């Protein structure tokens, strides 16, 4: 199986879907001539031309709305946000237009559209460029929220998102673009709403999505040195959320830590913990513990930034806490 970067896996998915379906087009800032701010769209303008790889002005609200309007008229837009921080300007179009039109038209107007781009913090980009919004979008009925952690998932989930027929918020990892992994050639489709066990274990379940999967896997390595067998479960999509697979793991391990890069208040982990106490209350030997980003705007200073982000040590410590080994 070929090894690809996360970036090139996304590129492959876009290329294959654009070849498969002439209704699919890519639109966003710098996606064409510049080849993508993060080079995800490299070479697509050359293959598909300027009508299908469309450079936009810096107007997130406007071109997100153009995407929704194009979807209403029968196209399948992939709208790239240079980062999800900028998509806040487009929130009205995502929430008030894309997520609502099918419902308030009584089923007459489906919106097959993917909004995609990098989310989460990178390195020292400061408060306005270091945010995780998956819990915001996951709160909205009518949207699906996808957060791939690996190159293979990036490709397979993007292909599913494009084919889904609904508005999909597809949040990539800015720090993941250069990561490598095996990616199946050609038709590799990962269904939305199906979690994956990224590492099998027996003593504690670590639930993590997107970049936090890497952090959880590193924590699992650390814990293994202490003789603790951690299982890492990646929901892969936040909405729909595959609580069944997560609960199955927790029934086995009886302990759970939920990791996310976003803020704690009303976060993804809050939802997972709530669902788990319903699904397997009697199986839990300890309260679910959450590891989140610090409840502050992201600081610029390198040391402060490190303190603000979840890392393997924090996750391992949380695992020891639910194992009562701290």
């Amino acid at each position, binding site marked *: 199986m070929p090894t690809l970067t996360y970036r090139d896996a996304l590129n492959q998915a876009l290329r294959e879907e654009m070849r498969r379906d002439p209704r699919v*087009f890519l639109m966003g800032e710098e996606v064409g001539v510049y080849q993508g701010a993060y080079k995800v769209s490299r070479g697509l303008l050359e293959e598909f031309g300027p*009508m299908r790889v*469309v450079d*936009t*002005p810096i*107007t997130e*609200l*406007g*071109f*997100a*709305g*153009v*995407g*929704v*309007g*194009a*979807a*209403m*008229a*029968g*196209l399948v*837009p992939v709208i790239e946000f240079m980062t999800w921080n900028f998509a806040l300007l487009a929130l*009205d*179009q995502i929430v*008030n*237009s894309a997520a609502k*039109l*099918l*419902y*308030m*038209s*009584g*089923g*007459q*107007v*489906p919106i097959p559209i993917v909004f995609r781009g990098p989310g989460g913090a990178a390195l020292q980009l400061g408060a306005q460029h270091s945010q995780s919004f998956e819990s915001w979008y996951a709160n909205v*009925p*009518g949207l*699906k929220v996808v957060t791939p952690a690996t190159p293979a998932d990036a490709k397979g989930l993007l292909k599913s998102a494009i084919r*889904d*027929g*609904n508005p999909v918020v597809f949040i990539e990892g800015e720090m993941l673009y250069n990561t490598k992994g095996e990616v199946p050639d050609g038709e590799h489709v990962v269904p939305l709403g199906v979690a994956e066990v990224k590492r099998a274990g027996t003593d504690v379940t670590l639930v993590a999505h997107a970049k936090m999967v890497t952090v959880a896997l590193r924590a699992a390595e650390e814990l293994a040195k202490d003789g603790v067998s951690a299982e890492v479960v990646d929901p892969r999509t936040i909405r729909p959320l595959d609580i069944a697979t997560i609960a199955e793991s927790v029934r086995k391990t009886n302990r759970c830590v939920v990791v996310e890069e976003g803020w704690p208040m009303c976060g993804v982990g809050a939802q997972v913990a709530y669902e788990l106490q319903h699904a397997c209350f009697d199986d839990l030997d300890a309260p679910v513990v959450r590891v989140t980003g610090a409840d502050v705007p992201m600081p610029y200073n390198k040391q402060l930034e490190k303190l603000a982000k979840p890392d393997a040590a924090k996750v391992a410590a949380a695992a020891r806490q639910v194992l009562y080994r701290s």
Partner: protein
Amino acid sequence: MATSRRPTRELQRAAAAVTDKALAGENPADMRRLLREMLLIRRFEERAGEQYALGKVGGFCHLYIGQEAVAVGSMAALKSGDLIFCSYREHGQALARGLSARAVMAELFGKATGCSSGKGGSMHLFDAEKGFLGGHAIVGGHIPLVAGSAFAIKYKGESGVAVGFFGEAAVNNGAFHEALNMAAVWKLPAIFVCENNRYGMGTALERASAIWDVAARACAYDMPAETVDGMEVLAVRDAVARAAQRGRDEKTPTLLEIRTYRFMGHSMSDPIHGHYRTKEEVENQKQRDPLATFRKRLEEARMLDAVQWQAMEADVNAEVEDAIRFAEESPDPDPAELFTHVTTG
């Protein structure tokens, strides 16, 4: 194109030449059809207001009385493949586009037989088969959708145009500028129809906008624009026809400022005069009632006689009465409909 900072209180002078156009060459039956459509909207809205007062219509309800010539004139110039987007004051456009009075009234009543299956309401009327794509209730939010559907038309090599109706208060909104800019840069077949009824809710255009000629905004995007007398149905029809031709033939967008006036309050919770305009102003504007004006003109041109008018009134009244009865007798949506149409599949 007028570009002065002239107060909108001196309305319509710029477009006066168009309004005096003779009816010569017009087909009398077509003219009577336009009159009937305006009359249908007027009677429908009067009765919708009554039904609101009776508690049959819920939520917000924004009546179109006074603005009928804009919807009717516009739709007369458009074709079946064209795509229509509206604001939340869209009962008139829906009826003029050919949605049945039954389907619209039933939607106002929230019934399963409504044009949006009772899930949209007064502000979210849809009929995808007729290219009627809403009913959008965030001011200005649907203007980018117009550009997007025009993009799709061009992408697919089709000959339609996308048409968006919005009020003059929307033109100070970023969505308006972002959409017009992209439509101009990409040469999209779009018509942006600003229905300038002079008040964004209770705020007069002069109090909210640095320039008072909406059409002048188009020069920022090197876009053709016209100021149109919105009380004259034929002036509207002809302006929209010119814009549609520009869209179809040249793939060029147009901004139309159609100057009209709302005879009722902003919504049902707003009295007709309110604090923001005088009774005299409203009464003065009613002298230019688009329905009465056009009827008089047809009578003078001997295209309409008293018998035809009475028959038309009786027919329209019966149609609206039937719509109310239909809405009243229709079932509410099944409770299971609560969870349908959130996502497909």
